[in-house]
């Protein structure tokens, strides 16, 4: 083991058998000098040529790797010191010192995370188990009058580990009753984990589940399970099919690249079909299997779809959406009025991508409408923290409902202190956007509005450029906000356009002013804005006179703590002629879900303020544009807590 002084001096040269210089392709080693008899010399030379040829081939395949960019959103910001300052805070204008946050020496021995602060982080109406770790939603289904949610659960610690299926039921997708663990790691074929899977309801009402097991040897296999008592609406006990596993990685597929079977749908031949994500080299793919009994399967030639360069496809989802109606479709529905979505969770970048396309049921293949917006390279369900999502057809209300895992973006030490990690997003309905036809829209399920209580309404507030308006509310940790904004036409018209690129993540957030933005709401804000989380629109006028609208959620000043993620998330949002700009924000303690233009662009954020909590949380309205006036109308509802 290297000594600590060596680790402190990582650039000190080390004793290596070969000198460490960058290896060009085709570098060869010196040949040893050996004296042999002529016959043996020939034999040796043959060997030498073979070995040299092999060496060249080997090095040719293992060229130098380019240093990778480590800038992903996985970890909290590694910049330890910037959060101490609050640049461009509105507080300065109001006479509040920029350096308001500085603990008095010796007077305050509490570290950033008091139990008060950590307790506040727990949500009021987002699904989460009582303690420890959760990740992917599994087998969501409506069965005998109950909505079921299963989920990846680590019962031992607030960190991922040996996973079992947690289980909860609800009548309304909002209030939940926790049930015992549905499936444990009690078989050799799921000993390392009862991983993600999906439920299928057969026409006769039977329910079957296919899920991935990580075997005792860490091979990923698919297993069949079904309720021990189909008459039990709570589906408490489960049976694993004695003949498991029903699928093992096929030839050419790595043992660790074969997981997350989908809900099955009917083929024209009357069989059941599923798809399972995988990869071949760097091409993400989705394998297709047909079955009649969920016990024996036939692998179809080729794949449902593949996209080069996207890496492993996890949690693939495949479902129809209606081109005409405003309801969801059973997974087996097909026909001329239908498009199909292929969605996958990209293992490489931890984001969920989807694409709209056409399914050929006879060939078992799907083609995207727009190959430049293909799976993994185009649209995302959500531009914040949102992964491993899965839909189900809710036959109770004829809608397609989306669940997703929302991880923490604080430190593991904090998760251990507070005793839990991860949430589910509020379930969303999914529909094709009938106006743009090139994206879906997502919206929190209507049942969430049952939690709305006291409403505060602000109508036609006029915000001059640079305005900041505190909105007087009884509380601000659990809110449902619906807001509409209008830019003053005159300024928009007279402005000279410029083709300046805008990207939420690189923009510097709400403090970076443009002529026509940013403007929006600042949630979980503290008086003086020492901490605040702006959710905003930024409108840019191009040289051609067209407007582009961006929708962002800015965590860069969300907390004075230095060990939480401070990224800015967001994306462009399509805005059609004549549409006002509208946003909806669900604030629920340490999670903020933001929706623009009725769900065309969605952003889920995790926010961990130290000051803007309990009675000190505020809501502000702002217009940080330099030129335009904005008129805003806002409805703010207090949200009751759900039973969770």
């Amino acid at each position, binding site marked *: 083991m*290297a000594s*600590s002084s*060596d*680790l402190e001096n*990582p*650039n000190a040269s*080390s004793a290596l*058998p*070969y000198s*460490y210089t*960058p290896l060009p392709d085709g570098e060869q*080693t010196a040949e040893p000098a050996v004296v042999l008899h002529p016959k*043996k010399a*020939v*034999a*040796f030379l043959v*060997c030498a040529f*073979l*070995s040299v040829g*092999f*060496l060249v081939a080997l090095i040719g395949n293992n*060229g*130098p*790797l380019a240093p*990778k960019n*480590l800038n*992903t959103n*996985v*970890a*909290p910001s*590694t910049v*330890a010191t910037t959060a101490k300052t609050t640049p461009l805070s509105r507080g300065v204008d109001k006479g509040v010192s920029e350096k308001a946050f500085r*603990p008095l*020496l*010796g007077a305050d*021995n509490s*570290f950033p995370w008091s139990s008060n602060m950590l307790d506040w982080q727990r949500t009021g109406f987002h699904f989460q188990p009582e303690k420890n770790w959760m990740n992917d939603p599994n087998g969501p289904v409506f069965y005998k009058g109950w909505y079921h949610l299963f989920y990846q659960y680590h019962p031992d*610690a607030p*960190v*991922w*580990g040996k996973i079992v299926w947690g289980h909860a039921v609800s009548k309304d997708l909002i209030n939940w009753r926790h049930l015992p663990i549905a499936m444990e790691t009690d078989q050799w074929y799921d000993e*390392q984990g009862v991983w993600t899977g999906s439920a299928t309801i057969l026409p006769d009402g039977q329910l079957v589940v296919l899920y991935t097991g*990580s075997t005792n040897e*860490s091979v*990923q296999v698919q297993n069949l399970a079904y309720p021990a008592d189909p008459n039990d609406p709570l589906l408490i006990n489960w049976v694993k099919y004695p003949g498991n596993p029903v699928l093992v990685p096929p030839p050419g597929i*790595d*043992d*660790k690249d074969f997981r997350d079977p989908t809900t099955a749908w009917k083929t024209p031949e009357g069989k059941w079909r599923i798809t399972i994500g995988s990869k071949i*080299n*760097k091409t993400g793919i989705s394998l297709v299997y047909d079955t009649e009994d969920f016990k024996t399967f036939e692998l179809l030639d080729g794949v449902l779809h593949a996209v080069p360069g996207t*890496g492993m496809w996890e949690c693939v989802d495949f479902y129809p959406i209606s081109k005409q109606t405003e309801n969801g479709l059973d997974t087996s529905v097909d026909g001329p009025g239908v498009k199909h979505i292929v969605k996958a969770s990209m293992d*490489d970048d*931890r984001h969920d991508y989807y694409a709209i396309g056409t399914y050929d049921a006879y060939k078992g293949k799907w083609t995207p409408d727009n190959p430049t917006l293909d799976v993994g390279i185009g649209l995302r369900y959500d531009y914040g923290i949102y992964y491993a999502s899965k839909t189900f057809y809710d036959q109770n209300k004829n809608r397609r409902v989306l669940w997703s895992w929302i991880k923490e973006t604080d*430190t*593991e*030490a904090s*998760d*251990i202190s507070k005793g839990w990690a991860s949430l589910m997003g509020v379930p969303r309905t999914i529909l094709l956007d009938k106006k743009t036809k090139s994206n879906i829209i997502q919206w929190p399920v209507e049942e969430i509005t049952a939690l709305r209580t006291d409403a505060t309404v602000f109508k036609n507030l006029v915000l001059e450029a640079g305005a900041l308006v505190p909105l007087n509310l009884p509380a601000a940790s659990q809110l449902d906000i619906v807001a509409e904004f209008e830019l003053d036409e005159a300024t928009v018209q007279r402005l000279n356009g410029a083709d300046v690129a805008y990207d939420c993540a690189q923009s510097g957030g709400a403090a970076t002013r443009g002529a026509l933005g940013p403007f929006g709401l600042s949630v979980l804000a503290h008086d003086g804005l020492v901490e605040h989380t702006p959710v905003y629109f930024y409108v840019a006028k191009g040289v051609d006179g067209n407007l582009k609208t961006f929708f962002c959620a800015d965590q860069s000043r969300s907390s004075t703590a*230095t*060990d939480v993620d401070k990224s800015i998330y967001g994306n462009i949002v399509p805005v059609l002629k004549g549409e006002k700009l509208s946003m909806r924000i669900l604030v629920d303690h340490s999670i903020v879900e933001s929706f623009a233009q009725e769900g065309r662009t969605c952003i889920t954020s995790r926010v961990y303020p130290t000051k803007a909590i309990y009675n000190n949380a505020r809501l502000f309205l702002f217009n940080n544009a330099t030129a335009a006036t904005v008129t805003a109308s806002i409805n703010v509802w207090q949200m009751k807590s759900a039973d969770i």
Partner: protein
Amino acid sequence: MESRNTNFLQFLKMKISSPLTILFLLFLLQQTLLSAMADLQLIKNTCKGTPSSSLCLKILLADPKSQNADLTGLALIGVDAINNKGLEILKQIVALKESRPELGPVLDHCAEVYLAVVDADVLSSRDALRTGMAKFAEQGMADSAVEAQVCEGSFGEHGHTSPMLGSNNAMIDVANVVRAIVHILLYG
């Protein structure tokens, strides 16, 4: 008896000295050399994709398992290095609690965050790498670097000079290197 042994030895000598046998033995030697060179090649190439290739090489080559390891195996060696470093730092904290009692509360906080590294991040990362869920290992390594920064920052926040600057920086460096190895594993 003796003549049979002698005959046998003569038989062996004949076989060894024949060109075909020499060819075969040289081929074996070449394969072994190539295999060892290929593994070293993997280590070198992997380390080039990390923020500190020399630190990376140090960590990996210090463990004999690296000779026959694939990329997952190299990542696991890296996680072991995090674990070892974390345990070492925890011991340092215990010693400091005695020699610098005025730093007590800060040292307690450092112990807390390093326990998160060793108890949660390391265990989770190992499980993740072994079962093909490398993304959780990347998360664990990223978190380890942040925990070290939290410990380091805690001293300043309370008006003290950190006696652990070297250790915390070392943990950050190792964590960033191992995170990069896992990143290579993920992105292929």
